[in-house]
């Protein structure tokens, strides 16, 4: 059964994946380390991230009929390849769990205060399980529609906040020099750019118009960063840098100030729903990656739907128990996890890219 997806849908998924770090992770890190220079860090991440995305696109380009697991097996041989595949998948599941944790933390602390976490996970697991058992085309279509919805909500936020900006709050620029900016940008890069590694589980031949994919991924990547950039600038300009540091979910607090046309005032709940959709997208793509890994390494044909549903539910439930409290979570997210991600999502793809180049050179001869 050939699965197909179109390049426009891949672009929409890019937007969703890049922006899913916007809730809980990126503002926490940025406003903690740099207060009003956060927008510079976002710009820097955008520029550095393009290099990484180009690496991923290059890996995607070679051997278009194989997905990443088959490519790794091809380069490194079967045994080492299996080990590397296993570690990549475990890291991927771990990252999915962390994103889910941040979303559930957000929901429990801002909306549904008394509801136990497990219940929210169960209700959230129902659409996840339903979608992950469908074909790739369905996933593409659903996320395209979500892209349109989140674009509308983003525009509403933009219009609602643009009259309350006070650019004086962005001064002084580079108060502590450029080192903290570079540090901050390197810390958020794993969460925003490395996530696109998940696309490599789709073989390029499955895309209907594959000539346009590279261009579209880069365009949607830039659009997503533009959205994050405006978000960070709005936060800094509306609240000031100092005030932004003390809130737990700054991006939600700034939505409380949206006043559209004079009477649409208390809309922060509806405007923040798009973040839930983003994290939903990351969860689905992560689980799709896992599904491909299981199909590839264990060669299961029959009960794949049941197995992937169980893994989905288990990984969602894990997000409840992974961190004992929020302070430890913030520490680990800021300090430990980026290093793990750098190994797997930066060094490894570079090695893979070099390996692919050597292999294709051999074949050409």
């Amino acid at each position, binding site marked *: 059964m050939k699965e197909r997806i179109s390049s426009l849908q891949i672009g929409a998924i890019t937007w969703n994946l890049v922006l899913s770090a916007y809730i809980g992770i990126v503002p926490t890190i940025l406003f903690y380390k740099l207060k009003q220079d956060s927008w510079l860090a976002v710009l820097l991440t955008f520029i550095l991230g393009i290099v990484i995305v180009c690496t991923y696109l290059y890996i995607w380009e070679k051997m278009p009929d194989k997905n990443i697991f088959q490519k790794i097996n091809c380069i490194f041989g079967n045994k080492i390849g299996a080990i590397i595949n296993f570690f990549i998948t475990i890291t991927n599941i771990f990252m999915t769990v962390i994103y889910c944790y941040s979303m559930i933390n957000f929901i429990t*602390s*801002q*909306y*549904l*205060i*008394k*509801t*136990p976490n497990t*219940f929210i996970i*169960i209700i959230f697991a*129902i659409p996840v399980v339903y979608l992950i058992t469908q074909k790739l085309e369905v996933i593409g279509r659903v996320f395209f529609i979500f892209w349109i919805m989140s674009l509308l909500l983003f525009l509403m936020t933009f219009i609602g906040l643009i009259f309350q900006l006070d650019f*004086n709050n962005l*001064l*002084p620029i580079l*108060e502590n020099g450029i080192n903290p900016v570079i540090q901050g940008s390197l810390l958020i890069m794993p969460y925003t750019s490395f996530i696109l590694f998940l696309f490599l589980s789709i073989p390029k031949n499955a895309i209907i118009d594959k000539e346009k994919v590279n261009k579209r991924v880069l365009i949607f990547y830039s659009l997503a960063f533009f959205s994050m950039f405006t978000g960070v600038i709005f936060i800094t300009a509306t*609240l*000031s840098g*100092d*005030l932004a540091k*003390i809130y737990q979910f700054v991006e939600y*607090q700034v939505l*409380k*100030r949206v006043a559209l046309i004079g009477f649409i005032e*208390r809309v922060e709940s509806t405007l923040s729903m798009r973040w839930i959709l983003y994290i939903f997208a990351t969860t689905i793509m992560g689980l799709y990656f896992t599904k491909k890994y299981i199909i590839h390494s264990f060669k299961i044909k029959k009960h794949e739907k049941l197995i992937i549903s169980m893994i989905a539910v288990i990984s969602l439930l894990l997000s409840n128990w992974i961190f004992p409290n929020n302070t430890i979570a913030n520490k680990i997210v800021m300090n430990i996890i980026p290093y793990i991600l750098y190994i797997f999502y930066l060094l490894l793809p570079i090695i893979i890219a070099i390996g692919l180049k050597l292999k294709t050179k051999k074949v050409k001869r």
Partner: protein
Amino acid sequence: MKKLKLLIFILSIFLLTGCWNYNELNDLALISGISIDKDEEGFIVNYMISNSSKSESKSNSNETSTILYEGRGSTISKATENINQKLPKIPYLSHVEVIVISEEVAKNDMLKAMDFLLRNPESRKEIYLLVSKDVKAKDTLSILTPLESFPSDNIKSNITSSTNEIATTSTIKYSEFLAELIQRGIDPTLGVIEVEGNIERGQNQESNDNARQDAIIKLTSSAIFKNEKLVYITTQDESTAIDILNKKLQNIYIETECNNEKIVTYITSIDAKTKVKIENNKPKVTIDVKGDGSLIEVNCKVNLEDSKIIEEIQQQVEEKLKTFLYQGINICKKYKTDTFGFGNKIYKVNPKYWKSIEEKWNDELLPQLDVEIKISIDLYSKGSLNQSIKEEIK
């Protein structure tokens, strides 16, 4: 397989013996105003709760449409716990519009109030904060007027309408107060609420039936804070001056003299731009004030069609305004608080210099700060009359 999944799903719904965050509307107590007082035993917190059935029926009964609940405790949270024990409903904080804090609390315990309200995720940060002077905070909440159906609404509409006209005080929201508190080099101010008249009779609904009311709310002065402590409550004039320099007020009436009579000018669209420069390692502040003036009352015999006389009047107005505004700057220097944010501006322009003078700023450098105010008023309109009446009568 599919039916099994559906069955599990349906069964799991029946386990919902109580959706935890589900609250019916009539189970909630809608709090529209909070007041915080303090006495020897601890904090006194009052909730003003809208009594929904009475306000909906709009009858002219003698019962009030809002109820005050009082609670006491050693900390603010304990006081609210005390109230919750007395309330028959679940307290709901998202629609609070006004918080009135008494002078004693503002002098020492402001931070305790701030933290309690900030941490609660239900509360919104667009609440108006006021300091009550000479009366207990809970009494201000309970004054009723006939035009609105609940008192907290009265304060809010009084506040919002007064800023657009000639008002003498500005409205500060909770988030702005917090921003000014946290930022370096700037100290917050708050509006002050007073009650004129007899409080006891004003609390009763009957007083609204008379044409002249027994107790009225006035918003006249400002409260100056140094960090989080209240240091001084200004007079009406000083409060106007501070508000103009803070860009919160754009209109003012100025009286000038001519031949033992008065000319009154109404100045609108006042724009006060502050610039900070560092010369010879010392900061220098320049404030440019621009405005449009129009003559409102001319009681003396002058020839208004002579341009020289207009210029004279203009200069007199400018001088008067300058002395007026210097009042506000002097308050700031006297109490050693940075109400206008000069320190903040230095920080934004030159953070390194700010770091070197940060400790000395409030106590030493601020009272000696060189502030220069330049005013230019454009007297463009004389109202409907071209000439003063006295001049015409001859």
